[in-house]
């Protein structure tokens, strides 16, 4: 009797052990490139924030609908004048190095971002904060110089990641070894090779993450990602090209999900260069482009937008009927404006983005049809940012603006010549600036509606639309999420069968 009990126990234990090992859930994820640095306060790289979403937490975060909800802060309270923000931190949160999260960590983090020596690309977004008080371990009080509606979006973005104060003080190399409170710890990073994330067993969300391990394989070649998905060596690929969709759909083990991105795809026009300074010419150009066709051919489908806001955004307003595709009308408007037939327009295309290059080639053909002389120039990314974006040395260019958690991130400074379209419209600029200081969705939406209407009518851009993202997953993978607007990977709910 005793012996049989012993055997039963032994068997039960070994079964538990075995299932423990067999049940280790691992996800193989295909990443298209390697982040440069894993310090959330020293880069603007999309890949960095996409990776770090799993390692760090922020005070607040966007949920799946894009609404900003509590994360490390349990709740917050904004004073009536909008100048005092009080955050109450969640209790029992620990960093990967076992430090307990306190208000000191939040203070040290924000001071690090504001410090000029850090050289944070986002320091300006934290500029409204004039003082950070920590009355006790779980309370942080921010004092602002002026009301700032966009600040909450900043605190919920990747660059608001909270770092442990002890390691900030000891000058830890966060660029190589991130230490946060996030659902996973980074245990290995081979640059241009792979990034290994392992489950944080002390994560503050009960029962999450579901995976034990995520291996992000850096696979630059599209065809290899696709074959990896089909053969099962890759579980998720988040950037499937529309041309690979039929091949993936023909595999019984893979499914491709299409979601609308928060991209604002545009063809900017330099409003400081005649004849593009004439709104009539810009409207004519907008009439000359068949937007749906360009979306279909260059981006594999999408939704046209008629103004400078992404289609899925809560602040989006539809102006697509304003200047529909109408080459005859375009020709007529151009003749009325008296555009010189010999004027040569330069269109700068960023060669590292093949869809923009393809779109640019179609634009060129469509503009030629209405009698404009357009020359294409391919430039690399550094040249594009330096010459086109910063110095506005261009007539036309093609680009996509990524969505932002707060509309001010998208619209700030438009209507002034600071922005690269060099479009001067004091009324629009005033509306945008007022909206940034205004509280409440309804109040802000009224102001943004007017600003977006002016931007639609005056057409400093030819607005193309928002394209789709195709995520390829093996069928045994469930609930891989991407954060709205921020486009970061969220593996917390992801599971493999």
């Amino acid at each position: 009797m005793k012996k049989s009990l012993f055997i039963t126990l032994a068997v039960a234990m070994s079964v538990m052990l075995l299932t423990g090992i067999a049940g280790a859930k691992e996800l193989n994820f295909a990443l298209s490139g390697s982040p440069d640095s894993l310090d959330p306060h020293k880069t603007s790289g999309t890949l960095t924030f996409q990776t770090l979403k799993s390692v760090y937490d922020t005070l607040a975060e966007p949920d799946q609908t894009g609404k900003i909800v509590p994360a490390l802060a349990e709740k917050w309270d904004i004073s009536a004048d909008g100048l005092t923000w009080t955050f109450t931190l969640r209790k029992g949160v620990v960093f990967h190095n076992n430090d307990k999260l306190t208000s000191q960590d939040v203070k040290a983090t924000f001071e690090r971002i504001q410090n000029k020596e850090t050289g944070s690309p986002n320091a300006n977004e934290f500029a409204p904060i004039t003082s950070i008080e920590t009355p006790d371990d779980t309370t942080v009080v921010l004092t602002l110089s002026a009301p700032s509606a966009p600040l909450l979006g900043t605190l919920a973005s990747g660059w608001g990641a909270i770092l442990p104060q002890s390691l900030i003080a000891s000058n830890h190399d966060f660029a190589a070894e991130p230490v946060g409170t996030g659902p996973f710890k980074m245990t290995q990073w081979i640059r241009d090779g792979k990034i290994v994330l392992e489950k944080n067993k002390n994560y503050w969300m009960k029962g999450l993450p579901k995976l034990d391990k995520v291996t992000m394989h850096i696979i630059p070649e599209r065809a290899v990602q696709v074959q990896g998905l089909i053969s099962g060596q890759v579980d998720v690929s988040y950037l499937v090209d529309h041309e690979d969709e039929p091949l993936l759909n023909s595999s019984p083990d893979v499914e491709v999900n299409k979601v609308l991105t928060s991209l604002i795809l545009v063809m900017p026009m330099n409003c400081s260069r005649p004849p593009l300074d004439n709104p009539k010419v810009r409207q004519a150009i907008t009439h000359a482009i068949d937007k749906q066709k360009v979306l279909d051919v260059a981006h594999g489908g999408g939704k046209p937008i008629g103004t400078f806001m992404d289609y899925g955004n809560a602040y989006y307003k539809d102006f697509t009927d304003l200047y529909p595709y109408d080459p005859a009308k375009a020709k007529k408007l151009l003749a009325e404006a008296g555009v010189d037939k010999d004027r040569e327009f330069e269109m700068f295309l960023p060669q590292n983005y093949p869809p923009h290059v393809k779109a640019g080639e179609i634009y060129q053909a469509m503009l030629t049809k209405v009698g404009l002389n357009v020359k294409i120039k391919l430039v690399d990314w550094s040249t594009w940012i330096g010459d086109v974006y910063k110095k506005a040395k261009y007539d036309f260019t093609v680009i996509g603006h990524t969505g932002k958690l707060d509309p001010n991130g998208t619209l700030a400074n438009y209507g002034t010549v600071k922005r690269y379209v060099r479009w001067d419209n004091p009324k629009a600029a005033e509306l945008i600036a007022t909206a940034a200081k205004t509280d409440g969705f309804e109040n802000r939406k009224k102001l943004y509606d007017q600003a977006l209407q002016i931007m639609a009518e005056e057409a400093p851009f030819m607005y193309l639309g928002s394209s789709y993202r195709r995520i390829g997953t093996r069928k045994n993978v469930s609930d891989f999420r991407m954060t709205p607007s921020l486009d970061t990977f969220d593996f917390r709910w992801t599971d493999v069968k």
Partner: protein
Amino acid sequence: MIPGDPALTIAGVDAAESDIQAIRAKLGTDKPMLNQYLEWIWDVFRFDFGTSLTSGRPVSDLIMERFPLTLTLAVLGILLSIVIAIPLGVISAVRRWSFWDYLGMLFSQAGMAIPSFWLGILLLMLLSIKYRVFPLFGSGSINHLILPSISLGIARAAVLLRLTRASMVEELSKEYVITARAKGLTERMVNYKHALRNALLPVITIAGIQLGYMLGGAIIIEQVFSLPGLGRLFLFAVYQRDFPLIQGGVVFVAFVFSFINFAVDILYSVLNPKIRIS
């Protein structure tokens, strides 16, 4: 001067002007070009290659992290090409216009015509997807390097084969070969002891140069096989205007190249007694 500003690449499109200036000040790229260059030269003389602008890590660490992989790949590639090229080249020369000669010529024509990245993709499709002999991506074991080194090796083998054949044919028509045959030496002795040794000199030179090139990284092959080698490191450094990393990379490649040339010179004296004596 290359257009572009590393601070802008780091800051991204949405950064405020004040933040961009802070980054420039931190990187030191706000100083005059000449100052930056002289400072860099001074540091290089003290074997300090500076820190990468985008990743904030020492340039020497970044290079040394990648070097073992690139070195293994290059050595495997060159060994493979030598193993294929020299025997085939010698047989082609000794038995000119035979079946082996035609086979060698065919191989060398094909090897030179096929781009190595395309061969790489074909190899992946056959040996990683259809028959799962080798991994599709990743690094860390020798298995990951077999297919890339074959892709790299075949193209080099094609060149070396032609060279071996031409060089061997030339040696065999020289007078000392006739003398050797007149002395009554066996054909084997004449071919391998006398002619081959002399014929190998230009082959070794070219193989050395090719090894030097491969040690600078093989951008396209690294891309196809998802390998973290030097090629991709330097390529992205150029894209991002990471000046210290580009400069460090150039110095490193130049150093490796000179070292290989030096090693080849030493190898000459081993192979050719004439050089040893003079």
